[in-house]
């Protein structure tokens, strides 16, 4: 115990050798978790004539170039696909925020017959595994004439049952008195919802928005099933197509994956705490 001590942010003492060991392990894990992304970025920046298969591997491109991003756009309309993904993801944010807030408010704050049945419907829906119903969803979409459209991609997840229940819990945690006071002052349901309840649950709403965006942007199985015409592909489906058809040039696939992942990494970097909060709330519910 003769080591000099250092102190962490919580005021707990930690021995220097222990601190050093921690950082070594953290750096090893950093390599494992981030290394593959960096390698993909590096591959996407390597020119056509650079050997990407060398052993030992070369981590830095000798002549970094953005050519691959142009070339991948010649093979598949990658920017159109990105725009399709953006459209679906943005719409998914709007529908989930609006739909989940409205339904959550109805479940939490309103008194009416059938409320328990409505709550149960959302709980059951949350428990149904998406992977088990995709074929039935596909036939439903065909019946509606919406297969192979972006609307068809959007609809099944457009108001997630879990988001409704998240919003319900958020509203339940608000003190009822403020709304009762507003009621006495003559505010109607809509006004109480919009002006009083909604501003108090902004945090949960942000979580719903972020996970709705991420869910739609990253989704693979459902768009794979519902989209058949390359015109309407989203980015993930386009990448899968690129991989299947042009796998012989990893630079192109790498460029495509970089395009798909950068927006989300930026979003995550800006809004980290909502991402982490969402994990906690989702896990408790899920």
């Amino acid at each position, binding site marked *: 115990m003769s080591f000099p001590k250092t102190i*962490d*942010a*919580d005021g*707990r003492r*930690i021995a220097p050798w222990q601190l050093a060991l*921690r950082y070594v392990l*953290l750096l090893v894990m*950093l390599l494992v978790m981030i290394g593959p*992304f960096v*390698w993909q970025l590096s591959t996407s920046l390597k020119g056509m004539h650079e050997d990407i298969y060398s*052993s030992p591997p070369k981590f830095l491109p000798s002549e970094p170039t953005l050519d691959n991003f142009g070339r991948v756009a010649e093979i598949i309309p990658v920017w159109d696909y990105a725009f399709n993904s953006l459209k679906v993801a943005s719409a998914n944010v709007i529908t989930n925020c609006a*739909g*989940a807030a*409205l339904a959550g408010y109805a479940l939490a704050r*309103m*008194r*009416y017959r*059938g409320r328990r049945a*409505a709550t149960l419907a959302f709980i059951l*829906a949350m428990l*149904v*595994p998406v*992977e*088990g*119903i*995709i*074929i*039935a*969803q596909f*036939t439903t979409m*065909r019946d509606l004439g919406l297969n192979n459209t972006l609307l068809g991609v959007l*609809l*099944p997840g457009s*108001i997630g049952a879990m988001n*409704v229940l998240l919003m319900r819990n958020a509203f339940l945690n608000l003190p009822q008195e403020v*709304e*009762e006071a507003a*009621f*006495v002052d*003559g505010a*109607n*349901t*809509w006004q109480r919802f919009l002006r009083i309840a909604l501003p108090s649950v902004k945090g949960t709403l942000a979580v719903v928005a972020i996970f709705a965006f991420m869910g739609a942007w*990253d989704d*693979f*199985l459902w768009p*794979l*099933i519902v989209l058949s015409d390359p015109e309407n592909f989203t980015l993930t489906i386009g*990448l899968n197509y690129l991989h*299947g058809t042009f796998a012989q040039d*990893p630079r192109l*696939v790498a460029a495509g*994956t970089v395009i*798909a992942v950068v927006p*989300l*990494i930026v979003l995550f970097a800006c809004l980290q705490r909502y991402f*982490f909060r969402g*994990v*906690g709330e989702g*896990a408790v519910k899920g």
Partner: protein
Amino acid sequence: MKSTTAPRALSSDAAAAGPTHRSSGSGRGPRRGPATGIRRQLSFSPWLFAAPGLLIVGAFSLYPFLSTLVNSFTDRRTLVPGEFVGLANFRELIHDEMFWIGLRNSALYVVGVVPALIILPLLLALLVQRNIPGITFFRSAFYTPVVASIVVVGLIWVWMLDDRGLINAVLEAVGAGRIGFLSDQWLLLFSAMAVTVWKGLGYYMIIYLAALANVPRELHEAAAVDGAGAIRRFVTVTVPAVRSTMVLVGALSSVAAFKVFSEVYLMAGPSGGPAGEDTTLVMLVQRVGTGLSGRVGYASAISVVVFVVTVALMLLVLRADRKEDA
């Protein structure tokens, strides 16, 4: 049954509620009960608030669930309505070699992935638990694979594990031979499991971090005073304190693992690797049930098996938890 009637009840109520809702703001016309205040005013508008959510959830979760059950007893195809065939689909399943391959692989996936996802994220959470300088950067960095699409993750690892990819280049540089991660049936499945674990680490790490924050520090200090080393403290203090979280992680990850699709689809290809030997159950559902010649009835029967196993897994994990309590 309640779940199916809810959306229908909703549409009629909502239609009737329209005008009433608009006038309710001024406090007029309660039709139901003499109740007080908020209760009286809100007799119809709730259905309007809940309508969009109930409609979507009813049409795209609950109805498809029921129709999957019904379809599993028919020979319905994508373009042919089909007829009731009793248990024929399930009888066919028993003799379908591909079904057993799928079931085997999905079950193996649970066995391989779940223990790793219960233990490793806990260790990772312990590593990032102390608030030492720069730790928020590391926490975020470890979470990055969670944020990335499974397609991006799959394609990154396809390239990493390629015969001439980074891992093999390193193996060769250090004198070990190259390994065909993506050409051997079993190596492929294990590689996909490793990717699943890699992508899930950060997610479950955050869950464990929240649980660890609630472990009283005194427990550790007392154990340390008693002379318990780090490993002993992990087993006698940390594990019992986060056990319910471990059960939660076990339940979440086992259900997710059994339904694995994307990782294997991307790494083994749509047909499931050499001779389809790496096909998982959900891959089989996708392959059999989609497209213009899709056998909806048969794919639904496989889906029913997915439901049943999923529910059984949940119950199994929860039961294991209760047993430990006793």
